[in-house]
C-alpha cells in the first residue's frame, strides 16, 4: 500500500494499458469469430454452385427437393417458404399479445407488472426448445388433428409453438421501449384532458412504434433460426403445403434432419450448407432492418 502511494501515476498507466489491451483482445476475438464463421459457411455453401454446378436460380426457386433422385434436384423454395410463413405467422400471433402485456406492465399496473409479470414472461425464454417441441407434439398436434382436417402437423402447429418461444423477446423489448418514453409526453396528454386509453392509443403506441417493430423483427429472426422445436411439429415433407395443417419443412429443419446422415463434401451435404448460407443471409437482413428501425426511432 505504502509503495503504491509513492508512485501514484504509474499504476494507473498500467491499468489503462491493460484495460485497453484486454478490451481490444475481446473485440478482436469476436470479430475473428464472426468473420471466420461467415467465411466457413459461405465457402461451403457456395461450393454447391461452383463445384457441383447447381444453378443458383434453380436452388432458390425450384420446388422439388430430391437429392437422391436421378438427376438430383435441389429446389429449396419449399424450405424458404416454410421458414418465412412459420416465423411471420408466429410474430403475427405473438406481437399483439406482447404489446398488450407490455402496455399492462408499464401503463396499467406498473408495480405488479414489472415485479411479478415480467419475470414470469422472461422465464419462457429459459425453457429449452426441445421442451417446446415435445409439448407441441404432445398437446398442440393432437388438438389440431381433432379440430381441423389433416394430421395436425404443419405450419399452424409450428407457428403456434414459435409464437410462445418468441413472446419473451418481443415483450421484453416492448416493455423497455414503453418504459423509456419521456414522462412529459404522457403528462402533456393527460393535461390536455385525454383519458388513459386515448393516451396509450394515440401517444404511447405511435411514438414507440419503431421500437416495438424492432422487437417484432428480432422475434422473427429468433423464430427463423429455431430448428428443433419446429422440426418436431412441422412434418418435414419437402413440399409447399396446400393448407396450414399439412406437412412441410423449414430451412433449419431440412438442415438438422440430414446434416449428420450425409457425407461431408457430397453434393447433398453442400446443398445443406447452401441452405445454411440462405439462413445466415436472412439473419443479416433482419439485423439491418433492426438498425434501420432504430434510426427511425422518434426519441
Amino acid at each position: 500500500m505504502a509503495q503504491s502511494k509513492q508512485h501514484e501515476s504509474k499504476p494507473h498507466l498500467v491499468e489503462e494499458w491493460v484495460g485497453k489491451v484486454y478490451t481490444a483482445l475481446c473485440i478482436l476475438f469476436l470479430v475473428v469469430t464472426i468473420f471466420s464463421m461467415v467465411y466457413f459457411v459461405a465457402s461451403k455453401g457456395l461450393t454447391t454452385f461452383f463445384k457441383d454446378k447447381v444453378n443458383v436460380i434453380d436452388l432458390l426457386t425450384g420446388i422439388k427437393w430430391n437429392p437422391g433422385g436421378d438427376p438430383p434436384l435441389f429446389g429449396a423454395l419449399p424450405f424458404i417458404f416454410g421458414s418465412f410463413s412459420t416465423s411471420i405467422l408466429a410474430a403475427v400471433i405473438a406481437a399483439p399479445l406482447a404489446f398488450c402485456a407490455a402496455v399492462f406492465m408499464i401503463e396499467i399496473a406498473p408495480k405488479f407488472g414489472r415485479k411479478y409479470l415480467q419475470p414470469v414472461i422472461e422465464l419462457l425464454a429459459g425453457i429449452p426448445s426441445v421442451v417446446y417441441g415435445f409439448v407441441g407434439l404432445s398437446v398442440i398436434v393432437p388438438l389440431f388433428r381433432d379440430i381441423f382436417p389433416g394430421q395436425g402437423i404443419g405450419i399452424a402447429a409450428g407457428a403456434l409453438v414459435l409464437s410462445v418461444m418468441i413472446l419473451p423477446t418481443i415483450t421484453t423489448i416492448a416493455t423497455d421501449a414503453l418504459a423509456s418514453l419521456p414522462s412529459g409526453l404522457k403528462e402533456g396528454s393527460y393535461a390536455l384532458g385525454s383519458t388513459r386509453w386515448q393516451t396509450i392509443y394515440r401517444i404511447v403506441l405511435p411514438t414507440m412504434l419503431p421500437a416495438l417493430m424492432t422487437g417484432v423483427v428480432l422475434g422473427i429472426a429468433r423464430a427463423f433460426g429455431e430448428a428443433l422445436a419446429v422440426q418436431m411439429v412441422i412434418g418435414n415433407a419437402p413440399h409447399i403445403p396446400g393448407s396450414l395443417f399439412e406437412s412441410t419443412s423449414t430451412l433449419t429443419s431440412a438442415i438438422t434432419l440430414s446434416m449428420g446422415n450425409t457425407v461431408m463434401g457430397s453434393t447433398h451435404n453442400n446443398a445443406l450448407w447452401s441452405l445454411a448460407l440462405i439462413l445466415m443471409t436472412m439473419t443479416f437482413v433482419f439485423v439491418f432492418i433492426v438498425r434501420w428501425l432504430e434510426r427511425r426511432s422518434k426519441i
Partner: protein
Amino acid sequence: MKKAVLLVMALVLTFTLAACGQSNNGGTNGAAANNGGQAAGGASELTGSILASGSSALQPLVDQASKKFMDQNPGVTIQVQGGGSGTGLAQITAGQVDIGNSDVFAEEKLDAAQAEGLVDHQVAVVAMSTVVNPDVAVDSLTKQQLVDIFSGKVKNWSEIGGNDQAIQIINRPASSGTRATFEKYALGMKAEDLQGSIQEDSSGTVRKLVGETPGAIGYLALSYLNDSVKAVQYEGVAATEENVANGTYPVWAYEHMYTKGEPNEVTKAFLDFMMSPEVQDSVVVEMGYIPAGKMQVKRDVEGNITK
C-alpha cells in the same frame, strides 16, 4: 480491488481462449488426441484410447460394449460419438477417428475411391418391420401394396382391404440409413417424398406419431416395437429374429464398424470383443439387435444373398 477485477478478467480471457483452442482441436484434428492408440503398452495390459463416431442407431450398442471393455481393460479409454452414418464414414476416411459406425455399406455413401481402404466389421444385424396405427385392420402387406402406398398410388386403407381411412405416411429423411434399407429391401425402389407425408429422424418420434395418427404407416427397427404400434407382416412373413436369421424375412441390414486399413492393437482388441459371445449374446440381444453370428445367410453390397 481493481487488481482483483483485472485478475478475474484476465482469467476469463485465458479460459475463453483456452476453450476456443480446445474446441478447434477437437473439431479439426481429433486424430491427434488419440495417438495413444498406436502406442499400445505391454504384452498383457492394453493401454490407449479409441475414438468411434457415426450412426446414432449403433451408438448405444457400441457405448454399452465399450463400458464393459473399459471395465476389463482399465488402461483403455473409448469414446463413442453419434452424428449419423455420413459423419462416421466421412471421419473414418479422413482418419479423424479410429472407428466409423454406419448403418449402410460404405460403398453406398462414398465414392469407390474413398471407400477403398476401409475395412468392414459387421457386428450386428438390425431388422425393420412395417408398422401401422393399431386401428388399421390390415395384418399383412405384400411388396406391391407397400410400393403402391409409398409411391402414393394407394391413398386409402379400404383399397387394400382395410377400413375406410386415409393413409398417412410417416417416413424418414431421404438421407437416412433406415430409409435406405427399407426402400432397398422392402420396396425394391427409391420412393419420392410425397406431398403431405411426414418425415421424422428419430425412431421414438416415428413410433409416437404412428401410434397416435389415424391411418398412419411407417417402419421401425425391431427394438422399437411395442404395444402402441402394430407390426404388419411382409408378404405373409412376420419380422422375427428367426425369420431374419434364416433369410425368409428380407428387410434387414448390417451394422458396420469401419476401420481405415487394418486396425491397431487396441482397436482390434475392442472389435474382437464386440464379436465375442460376451457382447454378442448379451448386449447385442438386449439392445434388440440380432447377433451377426446367428445369421444363416450373408449379403453383399449389391444385396445378393448367399446361404
